[in-house]
């Protein structure tokens, strides 16, 4: 399918044509941002930088009911099917992160909750123009205009957005939009390429991950883990807000005569995460927990699923209250290898 173009003044028409209720877009409330339904609005703030809460929250909500039951009964009722979603304005790193998490949730046995939503979602990405100071996507096979995990790539050309459909789902959206979209010119694609190149050149932070997955576990007893975990408060922000972190807890909750079993995001940076009922804890201090976090992302996940579980979005650096910096840890790792 040809590349298309959406004039900025027609964004409202685009939303209306496809059905506003289907859209999830970046929204800022109370100082943090996340993807949320349009709420009747007829425009999208495409100037927001990458959302504080990553895209994963739409597919794998922070708290999610697995099934409900009545107290004293044994019948269990799982929630109904997922809604269809068109997610617009996704940053390429977050879409790439989904393709990483997909591997885990598709691993036998498949996760019906996550995959049910995945199947019904179309993802329209927005190429980054102003990467943030701690972005390092280009070190991990991504980039400001990476298309991995996207159905359509949008690029801001000033007066309009270039729409590059990448999958059947993406083409379907373009067809549905009808004459709200117009065909693009060759010059538009060239302009977009320049935008992509300029953005990539603004990414300053880098890590050469070569050799890390294979050799990282050899640094088990290295001083790196004590040193880099010393300032850590164990708040878990680096994992909750990581687009590839997927760990969860399962709990029961009763309210009145209704009960539910739900899953809720958990973090390997918490002591309770691995605490045995006996009181024994295989990862008793932040040293072991930091070591596990880095090993899981940069080595174990690679062993299991063939890809580093990090996309270089920089959130764990930006949002850490005490400036623990994964690139700093990784550069110490590189030195020690």
């Amino acid at each position: 399918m040809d590349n298309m173009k959406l004039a900025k003044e027609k964004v409202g028409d685009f939303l209306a044509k496809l059905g506003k209720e289907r859209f999830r877009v970046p929204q800022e409330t109370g100082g943090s941002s996340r993807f949320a339904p349009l709420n009747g609005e007829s425009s999208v703030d495409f100037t927001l930088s990458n959302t504080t809460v990553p895209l994963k929250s739409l597919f794998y909500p922070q708290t999610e009911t697995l099934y409900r039951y009545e107290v004293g009964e044994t019948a269990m009722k799982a929630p109904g099917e997922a809604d269809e979603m068109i997610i617009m304005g996704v940053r390429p790193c977050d879409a790439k992160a989904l393709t990483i998490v997909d591997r885990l949730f598709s691993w036998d046995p498949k996760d019906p909750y996550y995959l049910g939503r995945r199947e019904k979602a179309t993802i329209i990405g927005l190429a980054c123009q102003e990467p943030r100071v701690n972005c390092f996507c280009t070190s991990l096979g991504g980039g400001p205009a990476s298309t991995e995990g996207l159905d359509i790539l949008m690029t801001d050309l000033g007066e309009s957005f270039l729409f590059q459909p990448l999958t059947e789902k993406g083409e379907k959206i373009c067809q549905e939009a009808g004459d709200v979209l117009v065909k693009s010119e060759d010059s538009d694609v060239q302009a977009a390429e320049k935008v992509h190149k300029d953005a990539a050149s603004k990414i300053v932070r880098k890590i050469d991950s070569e050799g890390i997955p294979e050799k990282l576990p050899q640094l088990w007893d290295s001083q790196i883990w004590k040193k880099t975990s010393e300032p850590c408060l164990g708040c878990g922000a680096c994992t909750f807000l990581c687009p590839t972190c997927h760990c969860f807890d399962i709990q029961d909750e009763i309210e009145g005569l209704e009960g539910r079993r739900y899953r809720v995001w958990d973090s390997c940076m918490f002591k309770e995460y691995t605490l045995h009922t006996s009181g024994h804890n295989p990862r008793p201090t932040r040293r072991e927990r930091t070591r596990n976090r880095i090993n899981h992302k940069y080595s174990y996940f690679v062993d299991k699923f063939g890809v580093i579980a990090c996309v270089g979005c920089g959130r764990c650096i930006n949002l850490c209250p005490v400036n623990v910096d994964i690139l700093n840890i990784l550069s110490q790792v590189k030195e020690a290898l």
Partner: protein
Amino acid sequence: MKENPYQPYVATIEDTWYETVGDRAVKTFKVTLDDPEARKNWSHRPGQCAMVGRLGIGESMFCISCSPTEGDFLRFSVMRAGKNTQGLHEQEVGDKITVRGPYGNSFPLEDWKGKHILTIGGGIGQAPLRPIVEYVKANLDQYAGLTMIYGARTSGDLCFRNEFEEMMKRDDISCHLTIDIEEEGWPYKVGFVPSVLMEVNPSPENTIAITCGPPIMIRFVLENLKKLNFADEQIYTTLENRMKCGFGKCGRCNAGNLYVCKDGPVFSYSTLKNVPEAFA
């Protein structure tokens, strides 16, 4: 396994009894799945685990402590240690619990045919070994022999004592019970499991040793098995870590790059000796 792997089966407690008493009492539950279709489709192998719980309280991972050779039911031996296990201990015959699984790999008992099987257990660590014992007992003609060493702190902490005493009467099985400290009237061995292992002095020839128990016991058993010239490939154990899902999603049960729930819980020592967190 169900299409929605998070949704458990409902099971009814057919029988239950205490193995040990006290603060950390062990209670065994014999349960059957309510749904006849599920019961027909359920198949587990010695070494596998299941999530057992109660709606409204929660679920925890337990080894299935019976062998499929024993019949169309499941057994779990549960030590009272926290909220879920307390909830389970309150259940009696006829009560409903939830079960999902089976999870994980299993002891390669088919590959071990023709070999002598040696189990070395301590305390509640005998629970995952019991299915091996039962399986080998039921197919004894296909194995070169069965030797069991089992110990606990006191005679009151021994699980499955009646079953052991029955087996001690047989001359085709070698069975050694021990307690850590001497007690009046105790007719069997006294001493720590690793020392009793040296005393029994099993030959490594054509033998597989499987051990499970407290970490400190496992450490010394491994040392002693090496002294007895057992090769790493002849030694097996089963690991436990905190788990929530049981099938490789929730993240927490890993020891190094191995998920205990999916890659384990059964591992040979030749694998585990290279996993830095395995005995953490």
